[in-house]
């Protein structure tokens, strides 16, 4: 299972609002400056300045590294990852009517562009140059080494782990490499595993798909979904370990690892929905 540390989208409302807002972007009063594209682009000093400004104005809601808090995870947001920088500029300046997102219309253009540069830098993984390696061999290895038994790519694969069609947009190549070699370092929300013992002695192990004050919902490896009342549970233990094998570093040759990572690096499908763990919307 590939972990996904960027799980913390809780407030999808704002995400939806962003989508709706940008969908209607043509009707939004566009600042002239926004029609020019970001004049600062990836200038490192602009990114740094934007980082400071983001912490000052945005981090309270969007988290210290833009990975979500009260408001959405901007690193995973399509608008930030793949929308136009002009649209992002307009959105920051105008805010999102009907949400907690206030306008930043007191900032000069340059300062807004700095925030744009910072956000783009945080969402850069999808813009990195392709990793070298034999992508075809990597896919063959993905299928033969057992990865596909838990992960769907290109329409086929297992269901116990998160689908990976857009993994290289969500994560940097370094993060993906770490996920392959140290799969338990961070676990994907919505795909954590749990072992439950019921009062009548049954053992149920699988992926925890939901939980609340009264119940646990567990998906077992055969695909069945079991709802267990907490009042009927003797013990429930979350696994600190991923279901993924921990030995890819020794099991795969350097060449094989390079090919596998190259294959994963090509998984940048912009039309794949981000699959999240459970949450109340």
């Amino acid at each position, binding site marked *: 299972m590939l972990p996904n540390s960027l799980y913390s989208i*809780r407030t999808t409302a704002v995400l939806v609002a962003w989508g709706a807002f940008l969908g209607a972007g043509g009707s939004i009063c566009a600042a002239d400056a926004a029609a020019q594209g970001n004049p600062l682009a990836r200038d490192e000093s602009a990114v740094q300045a934007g980082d400071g400004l983001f912490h000052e104005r945005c981090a309270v809601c969007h988290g210290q590294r833009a990975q979500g808090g009260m408001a959405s995870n901007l690193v995973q947001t399509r608008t930030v990852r793949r929308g136009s920088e002009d649209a992002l500029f307009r959105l920051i300046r105008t805010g999102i009517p009907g949400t907690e997102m206030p306008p930043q219309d007191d900032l000069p253009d340059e300062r807004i562009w700095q925030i744009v540069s910072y956000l783009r830098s945080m969402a850069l993984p999808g813009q990195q140059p392709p990793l070298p390696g034999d992508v075809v061999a990597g896919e063959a290895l993905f299928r033969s080494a057992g990865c596909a038994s838990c992960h769907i790519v290109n329409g086929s694969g297992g269901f116990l782990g998160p689908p990976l069609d857009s993994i290289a947009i969500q994560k940097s190549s370094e993060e993906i490499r770490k996920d392959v070699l140290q799969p338990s370092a961070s676990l994907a929300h919505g795909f954590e595993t749990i072992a439950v013992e019921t009062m009548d002695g049954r053992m149920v192990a699988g992926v925890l798909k939901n*939980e609340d*004050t009264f119940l646990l919902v567990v998906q077992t490896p055969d695909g069945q979904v079991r709802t267990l009342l907490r009042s009927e549970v003797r013990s429930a233990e979350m696994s600190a370990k991923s279901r993924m094998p921990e030995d890819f570093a020794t099991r795969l040759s350097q060449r094989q690892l390079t090919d596998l990572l190259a294959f994963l690096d090509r998984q940048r499908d912009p039309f794949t929905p981000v699959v999240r763990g459970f949450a109340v919307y």
Partner: protein
Amino acid sequence: MPVSMNAAFQFRTPMVAIVCAVALLGPASQGGAQPVEERYRDAANWLSYDRDNTGRRYSELDQIHRGNVSRLVPKWMFQYSPQQRRSEATPLVRDGVMYLTAGGMRAFALDPVTGRSIWRFDYPYAHGEERQTPNSSRGFGLSGNRLYLATPDCHLVALDSRNGAMLWRSAVTADQPCFGSTGAPVVVKNRVLVGIRGGDTGRVRGFLDAFNAETGKREWRFYTVPAPGEPGSETWPDNDSWKAGGGTPWTSGTYDPELDLLYWPTGNPGPKDFDGRDREGDNLYTATLLALRPDDGELVWHFQYTPHDEHDWDANQTPVLVDATWNGTGRKLLVHPNRNSFLYVLDRETGAFLRATEFAKQTWLDRFTPEGRPIRRPGAAPSASGSLTCPDIHGGTNWQSPSFHPGTGLFYVMSRDACGVYFRTGASIDHLETGAQNFLRAIDLASGRIRWEIPLRGIENREVMFAGAMSTAGGLVFFGSRDGNFMAADAETGEMLWHFNTGGTIRASPVTYEANGRQYVAITTKSGVFAFGLYEEK
């Protein structure tokens, strides 16, 4: 569901009671007379945000009780709109009609027995006016045939309760940026009181406005941050920070008719929430409880909970009025579960500090002075490198309603153990890392100690929560949770007796009412309102 003090995932916290006066609550707290205005005495109705002027969110209705609450079933649901992202509103009910705001843009009158709508009101925004959190209206104020609604574009609107027609519309702010008004207006002595939000923007000087309930004409304004030369201005430095000093009163206040005092809490100071270096001093009257004369806005006394707040803890929780015997003497108390994790008891005649006890995890306080001024622990203030401090930015509780049950003497608080790293630029939260946990806690008002608690379990209940509580003479406390569960527990013991998954996050507090001789319990959820009643075989 057993009540657990040792549940899995629970953040174990040493609950240290900081008792500045040994209090003994006597019979007055056990169902004795409470300072309720006459107009609120009909238990069938729910006429203001917290039901009556005391803020107790307690109802004398007892048709639904411990013995039959397991038969509670949904009677109807009303869905406002598929676009609704959330609702924080408390519906009002009077004489067979429910009045509901769905954001600051839309409102409805409903049949409280069937959920069928009677009229609908759509707020007529002017082009370009739409700003800020239209989904955060917390409800109507009500007096006679008039409903009062605070809008996201900073207006107070009066509607005719019989048909939803707009009678007048008055600007709540005109001389500074508008960031909306979200609290339910409060009607006291033919005046409608409404505050503003926006204290976190660094661009607002807070105030509370009083409008004539009939004409909509503003009668007075109390600025929660004094101008230079005014009383309290000595707590601000000699710069312009007061102009963006925050202190916004963005929730609803309470009222004592005998003392003729209005109690209203204020928000955190600005211009920067987490960096107070340009506003050295106590920053009155932010994070403060104000006792004001409703006739002219005169400040009679004030109590500042968190001087020079640098954690955005504000004080916008409900000030609850309780008459009780305190150390052998009948006393008019004000009980306030503060976002800074302490439950305060004040004398509401004088503002004197009586006691504060910890009801949620905190690491910032060393001790209180006898006057109730907090002495902070070193290192609690935000810093450039970050300071790990409890509670987190959302506080030990927040704006959601607490409830006081005069029969049990228990104070019910939706509370939260959580910590955050405070930077001067903002607060960072990783609730998995810090093991955050939400609870319903029942606090014995006599001792200030937690009598029992119900941990709200599941990963969703580690995140910030805005669901409130309500108690009834049926011996029940109703409450919600972030994950959409609406629940009822035994008000005395905390035994969980009933629950229902509404399917959408709950960011509102429950109400109860009687219609056609039957008691209902209602809660607002993300996109609708649910009403529950006892199952009846036809």
